[in-house]
């Protein structure tokens, strides 16, 4: 078994609000292997973004607070770094692509300058011409046409897809070993989404960076990821490789997510949503946070009383459900689509 690149243990992140403490991330642990793509899925407010922002020290504190946990990256705990050391990691070893490219670039600075700044910050002695050449090469790599002219343009002269390409170029500028993409395609048109995902793939083959891909789109997970974490209410409820999860999910929430997807090959009159609403992160339901919406928990006290542990349910497959065994025979509607 190779060493994991990133190893997160018992990460707890809270936010103080006027209504009480929001338990955004509630004790999660996972590993990221070198070169792999790990998908984190979950609905809004499940803690998927916060868990990665915490790694980079990008959670505004206050109101946010990293309560406990470790994040070992290349032998060092990212959460214990001093501000200056943390900055040395940010954008060099660990880089991030954000959700909304329309607002993620500074409107008053040229795109080329903003990209070059990412390099200059970590290599202050680099010559300006060398940086410029690298910027143009990066823009070309992510498929921005006429990179020479484009570098001298401002963000408002770029389309959404082009901006996201520029953001990706910025993220890989220093060949990071870990790339975090936080819903990189959510704000884009569907056709542009596909292009940006292609760029992400190119970039991965080019840099061999491990990638954490945060999304709520299972289609993207299927397309891009090696392994998946499913998050619900600040906890990981299921983890495993992408084939296993799509073929035989073992957590009722994951099953709910799969069922809510329409299948293009069949006539479906209605979408099948998960009943109920996401849990309040201030007053979490006792026991399993998913029990008020779960089809397995009806009339079962254990779901209301005990918080289920994430336990192994198969080879490299983990689920946090007391009654996961009852789902062994469940066949996902994507079962045939998944290669054996």
């Amino acid at each position: 078994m190779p060493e994991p690149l990133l190893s997160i243990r018992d990460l707890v992140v809270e936010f103080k609000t006027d209504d009480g403490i929001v338990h955004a991330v509630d004790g999660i642990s996972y590993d990221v292997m070198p070169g792999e793509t790990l998908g984190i899925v979950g609905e809004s407010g499940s803690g998927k973004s916060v868990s990665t922002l915490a790694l980079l020290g990008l959670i505004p504190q206050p109101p946010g607070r990293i309560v406990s946990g470790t994040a070992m990256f290349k032998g060092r705990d990212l959460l214990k770094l001093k501000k200056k050391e943390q900055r040395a990691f940010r954008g060099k070893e660990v880089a991030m692509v954000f959700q909304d490219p329309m607002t993620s670039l500074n409107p008053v600075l040229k795109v080329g300058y903003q990209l070059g700044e990412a390099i200059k910050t970590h290599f202050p002695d680099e010559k300006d011409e060398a940086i410029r050449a690298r910027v143009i090469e990066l823009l070309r790599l992510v498929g921005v046409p006429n990179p020479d002219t484009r570098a001298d343009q401002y963000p408002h002269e770029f389309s959404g897809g082009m901006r996201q390409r520029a953001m990706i170029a910025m993220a890989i500028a220093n060949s990071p070993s870990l790339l975090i993409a936080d819903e990189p395609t959510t704000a884009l048109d569907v056709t542009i989404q596909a292009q940006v995902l292609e760029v992400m793939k190119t970039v991965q083959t080019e840099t061999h960076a491990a990638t954490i891909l945060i999304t709520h789109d299972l289609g993207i997970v299927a397309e891009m990821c090696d392994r998946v974490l499913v998050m619900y209410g600040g906890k990981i409820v299921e983890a495993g490789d992408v084939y296993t999860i799509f073929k035989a999910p073992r957590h009722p929430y994951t099953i709910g997510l799969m069922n809510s997807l329409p299948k293009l090959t069949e006539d479906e009159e209605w979408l099948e949503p998960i009943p109920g609403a996401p849990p309040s992160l201030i007053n979490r339901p006792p026991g399993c946070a998913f029990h008020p919406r779960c089809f397995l928990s009806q009339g079962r006290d254990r779901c209301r009383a005990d918080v289920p542990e994430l336990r192994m349910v198969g080879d490299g497959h983990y689920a946090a459900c007391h009654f996961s065994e009852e789902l062994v025979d469940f066949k996902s509607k994507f079962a045939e689509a998944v290669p054996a």
Partner: protein
Amino acid sequence: MLTYIARRILYSIPVLFVSTFLSFMFVSLAGDPRQNLLANPKLSHAHYKALFHTYHLDVSIPVRYWYWLQDVFEHKLGSSLLTSQPIWPDITRAMGHTLQVIGIAEIIAITLGVAVGIFSAVKQYSIFDYLFTTVSFLGYAMPTFWLALLLQILFTDIYLSYNVRIFYTSGLNSGVTSNTWSLDRLQHIALPVATLAIISFAVYSRYMRASMLDVISTDYIRTARAKGLPERLVIMRHVFRNALIPVVTVAALNIGGLLGGAIITETIFSLDGMGYYFIQKLGQLDVYAVMAYLAITSLFIIIFNLIADVVYGYLDPRIRYD
């Protein structure tokens, strides 16, 4: 950009004519200048007629405006109806004094306001922030005349109790000779400058703080931090320039307005500036002097609006003028 400025200046010309025409109508209708002449018992009826004719007071107001315009261009704003003195020397002298006072006050207010705004935003909810929030709100809340009088009383008391003259509380110079850049002049204008600076500072620091906080929470600042950029550079390079944009408008319009004279401050400190000039001439209903003042202030407002727009375009590349 140059074509834009040229076009804006061309647009300003009709604006200036319309605004002076309207003010001319209103000022002329506010009181009949002939009454001043009629009140003089030494003049005979024939004299009146002759004077009315020379000053074009026997024609309708729009026609009088036309004569006034000719006067403005031929004789540098013309001369006063009451004293027959040319207006130009008086108003330029007053302008010089106002420029000095407002100039110094605004430079201080902008520098401090922007600096304090940045610090307050970066150290939000710190003691520093609370302290300056309090100071700013005091500055906002205090009426100008009250603040000016407080300063006057304070320094008069200091003079009376200790017999030390730190700042003078009235006028521009101690002697008869006027010296623009002397210690004596600075001692005289310090209090009006302080009054104006405190009030402008309050406005600028609040705007700057709010604007900085707006920008600090944007996505592109998170991007800048995610690059590993040191916080100092994040603030100065990424936040500052974006935050300055709204402050520029406020400052430019404020300065444009103030150059017309800080009427209250100048009156309280008996400062021979534009505002003081205006209030005096308005009281005497010296129509052409008042008109000269209004024309100059309209010009300032137009110029500073243009400056605000040009600086805007420089700071924000999304704004393009063509």
